[in-house]
């Protein structure tokens, strides 16, 4: 049962651009990415859009649909009303390249700045022993498909370009948390650098990252807040302050 739907697509590049209305056929069960592809094949051969797996597994097709950061391949057309116009725009926190494609290199830059996994020097391949309960927390964060929707929606950088240099963003807070909770990681200063170099303190836990995460990772509750608590452990904990432990852990 094909029906015509109204699609409003942002087209343009970094210098100029705007929303364009198109009418396109949509079949039962289709997702927004399908109708974008149909527009591409029939009306706008050069419409730029990123995608790969079309199964919500690669995190390529991130865009904003009716203002909400979403994966286009996981957004049903049927979720919108019969007469509703569906507006699709590129991610609004990153520089636009063309049409629905943005420059997400910010995220790859930040990825390079997070210190890598550091196992004990004497650990031999095949000899690692880890309990399931000890890896589960980090495994949740490793579900991340790097769609960068959380980064895009985080107001710290979405609304403040100048914060980009000092803020790693929720995607990389879960990376830091993953490593800090990794049973074999021995790098001690992750908490301190999270706060002092990667901008953990700039997050005001307003949870938009969690709201948009397609993998349903509890970014705020399970990574950011626990990391903030770990920072309190080394910097602001009352009990430790009184017992003078703080001084000794300064190095951490």
């Amino acid at each position, binding site marked *: 049962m094909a029906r015509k739907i109204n699609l409003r697509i942002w087209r343009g590049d970094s210098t100029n651009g705007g929303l364009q209305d198109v009418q396109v056929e949509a079949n039962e069960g289709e997702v927004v990415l399908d109708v974008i592809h149909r527009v591409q094949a029939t009306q706008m051969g050069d419409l730029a859009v990123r995608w790969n797996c079309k199964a919500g597994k690669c995190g390529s097709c991130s865009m904003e649909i009716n203002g909400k950061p979403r994966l286009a391949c996981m957004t049903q057309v049927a979720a919108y009303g019969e007469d509703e116009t569906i507006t699709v725009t590129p991610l609004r926190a990153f520089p636009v390249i063309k049409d629905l494609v943005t420059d997400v290199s910010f995220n790859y830059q930040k990825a390079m700045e997070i210190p890598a996994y550091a196992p004990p020097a004497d650990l031999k391949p095949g000899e690692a022993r880890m309990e399931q309960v000890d890896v589960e927390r980090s495994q949740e964060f490793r579900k991340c498909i790097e769609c960068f929707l959380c980064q895009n929606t985080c107001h710290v950088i979405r609304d403040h370009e100048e914060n980009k240099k000092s803020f790693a963003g929720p995607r990389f807070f879960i990376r830091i948390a993953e490593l800090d909770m990794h049973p074999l990681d021995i790098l001690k200063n992750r908490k301190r650098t999270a706060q002092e170099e990667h901008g953990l303190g700039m997050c005001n836990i*307003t949870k938009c990252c969690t709201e948009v995460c397609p993998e349903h990772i509890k970014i705020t509750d399970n990574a950011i807040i626990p990391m903030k608590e*770990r*920072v309190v452990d080394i910097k602001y904990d009352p009990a430790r302050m009184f017992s003078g432990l703080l001084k000794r852990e300064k190095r951490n």
Partner: protein
Amino acid sequence: MSGVFSPTRAKIKERTLRTDKWWLQPAITFAVLFSFIIYATFRAFEGDNYFVEPLISPFYSPCLSQACVEGSTIFGWTPVSAEIFNFALSPALIILIFPLGFRMTCYYYRKAYYRAFWLSPPACAVAEPHSKYTGETRAPLILQNAHRWFFYAGLLFNVFLTYDAVISFKNAEGEWGHMSVGSLVLLASSTLLWFYSLSCHTCRHTVGGRLKHFSKHPIRYKLWSWVSVLNHSHQQFAWYSLAAVAFADIYVRQVATGAWTNFYFF
């Protein structure tokens, strides 16, 4: 021109293209919290109608001032001299700072009021009105890190309020074994406060979250698992406990002013 209007971003003039009622949630939060603040301020300064045998309002407990009405203190312990406040200020003000601080620094309430009061951001993917933002990295917001201190204080308060609930199972003559609507109200509010405190993120962290190896601490892991379950509903407990405390105070006040009678079941 910053944020979504920065020169490199896609040129879209709307602050948001969201078509749903994104403003509803912050509006409700604002309305409810604001009403509570008004009411609580009024009550804190009222300095009266907070005690009626055997009920004490949670706003005034523990009553530590010599200004406290008779019977409202804990074993008559009043370390704070009435002169400090010179009768101009109510006994509630000595203690309210703690539960207030606890809630102000609560991770959930922070989200709620940053969004509803400070519009930072008002809702996800809706541009905020501020041109500068530094988050919780400097004063005063860096003080949010004091949540752990308030958490410990909050636990202490829960003990007092539970004690209040227990002694409310007396009749007006001080005899045990009676139960009134008031006892249930105090019981409900103190219980919900426990749920609120135990589901706190700091609690989750302290009982086990800070550990690297759960497998080496099976008991703390169990505790952490339980607290994690509660923590899921921390937002709900935050609101329910707030409502319950407010209602407990209203109830005590109504009974104290004689507007309502405290019905005894037995």
